[in-house]
């Protein structure tokens, strides 16, 4: 089915749930009034990224009023958004939700929590335990959060699980200045989204935030990538933006006929070899 996605390249305020919530709801309203079918927000859109000891303070339970408000809005537009989730047993997850028609269609808890370089996620968050595709009114999709995408297995599993659209919510910091006209992180991500789309014959909806936290910049550049690996539309670098892309079912069908890599992918061979490797490694 053809649909229109709005990537909300926002600038959250660190730890300010109420302010961010208002801002996000007004962007959702814009999506509704301009006729988008799906609004995608960045990783930790409701809270900002370098939360550290704020994590438990800004965590929301699944029945929180703010999420209920977003759920109500999702009767008019699908929403994918990142936030800090508090579980009943007081674990905190870097989570993403896909909301549609007043329901939580899917919840993804970030699996790969980076702890190298400037990242410190595993110190504050509990690790997600599953990577699963889910059905939406626009076809089968998968949700990933930032670092998840850097582990080949994560998008692979989603594609094997039938996803044809991968949504990636991101808070990617700017780093790696060189002679290039783009930052190292920008170049790396653009290669990654394009290659992943091509390998898996999937569309990628990548939403990255902007703004600065403690001097660390987030570069934006949200994009819709076609299954061919070509960029359909891309957001501004460094600035807030609202990017609208159209997804054409025909383009997906044609790409999957042209390069049927996912059709030919052998799950039994992969499983056999992975089991062998697992056994050999644990010896």
């Amino acid at each position, binding site marked *: 089915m053809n649909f229109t996605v709005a990537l909300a390249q926002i600038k959250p305020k660190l730890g*300010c749930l109420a302010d961010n919530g208002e801002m996000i709801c007004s962007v959702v309203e814009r999506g509704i009034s301009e006729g988008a079918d799906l609004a995608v927000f960045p990783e930790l859109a409701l809270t900002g990224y*370098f939360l*550290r000891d704020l994590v438990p303070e800004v965590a929301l339970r699944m029945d929180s009023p703010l999420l209920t408000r977003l759920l109500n809005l999702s009767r008019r537009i699908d929403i994918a958004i990142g936030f800090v989730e508090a579980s009943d047993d007081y674990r905190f997850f870097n989570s993403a939700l896909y909301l549609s028609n007043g329901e939580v269609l899917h919840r993804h808890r970030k699996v790969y929590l980076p702890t190298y370089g400037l990242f410190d996620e595993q110190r504050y968050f509990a690790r997600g335990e599953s990577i699963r595709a889910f059905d939406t009114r626009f076809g089968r999709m998968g949700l990933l959060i930032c670092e998840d995408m850097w582990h080949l297995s994560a998008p692979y599993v989603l594609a094997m699980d039938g996803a044809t659209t991968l949504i990636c919510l991101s808070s990617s910091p700017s780093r790696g200045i060189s002679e290039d006209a*783009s*930052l190292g992180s920008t170049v790396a991500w653009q290669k990654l989204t394009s290659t992943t789309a091509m390998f898996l014959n999937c569309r990628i909806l990548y939403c990255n935030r902007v703004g*600065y936290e403690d001097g660390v*910049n987030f570069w934006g550049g949200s994009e819709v990538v076609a299954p061919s690996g070509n960029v359909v539309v891309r957001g501004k670098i*460094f600035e807030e933006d609202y990017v609208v892309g159209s997804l054409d079912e025909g383009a997906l069908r044609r790409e999957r006929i042209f390069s049927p890599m996912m059709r030919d992918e052998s799950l039994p061979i992969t499983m056999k070899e992975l089991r062998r490797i697992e056994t050999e490694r644990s010896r």
Partner: protein
Amino acid sequence: MGLKVNAKLLRQLLVGFIREEVCKVGVRKAVLGLSGGIDSALVAFLAAEALGPENVYAFVMPYRTSNPESEAHARLAAEQLGIPHEVVEITSMVESYFSRYPDADNMRRGNKMARERMTILYDQSAALSALVLGTSNKTELLLGYGTLFGDMASALNPIGDIYKTQVWHLSEEMGVPRAIIEKKPSADLWAGQTDEQELGFTYREVDELLYHMVDLRMNREELVADGFDPLFIDTIYHKIQNSHFKRRLPVIAKVSNRTIDRDFRYSRDWGK
């Protein structure tokens, strides 16, 4: 060579940094000390672009023995930008203190001057509702070539992650006056002083080593294989190690369950 940077992109990133991080605090203005050297000139150019020239206040703070050329270059930069600027002599303040300790050496005098200047900047920042911008570059910070709570103090430092070599490059892009870009770097604490003479190597040499050592994380063996002099490597390594205390907050004795900065951890931009 990895020290080369895309100056346009760097400019955009740093201008955005000043604009956002200043405004987050709830002010729109910045103050900085203009020494006549390239680092503070570059920061003034970045700040004027970020906040508008009328919102950047420059203070030129010469001492009795300062080279008159320094003040002239500071004025040159301020006038080119059209930023408000003022000269505040620090001679009487520094002299009054050292009249009690006439035997104090150059290092003590230099440190006192640097800290005297910073007290003025912080006082002016309060008077003007402005933030103090730092002007130490990455080379100086790594080598510890600066005065703690003096020139190393600031609320925000836009150039602390770029090497001196990159400061030169970005200054060209920003249009810093040629006379300032081309002169020999100097702390101007006594007549004829130059940084490179005092340090014993050039900025270009040390930046090359620092980049390979710090940014690329090459070990000693790899650095030697790359042609760096082992003695030079060791000297710089020890400089970084011995000056590390200057790059950290004062140490707090831990007694409670949550100690500031150790297990009481929040970003500085908390709630902004």
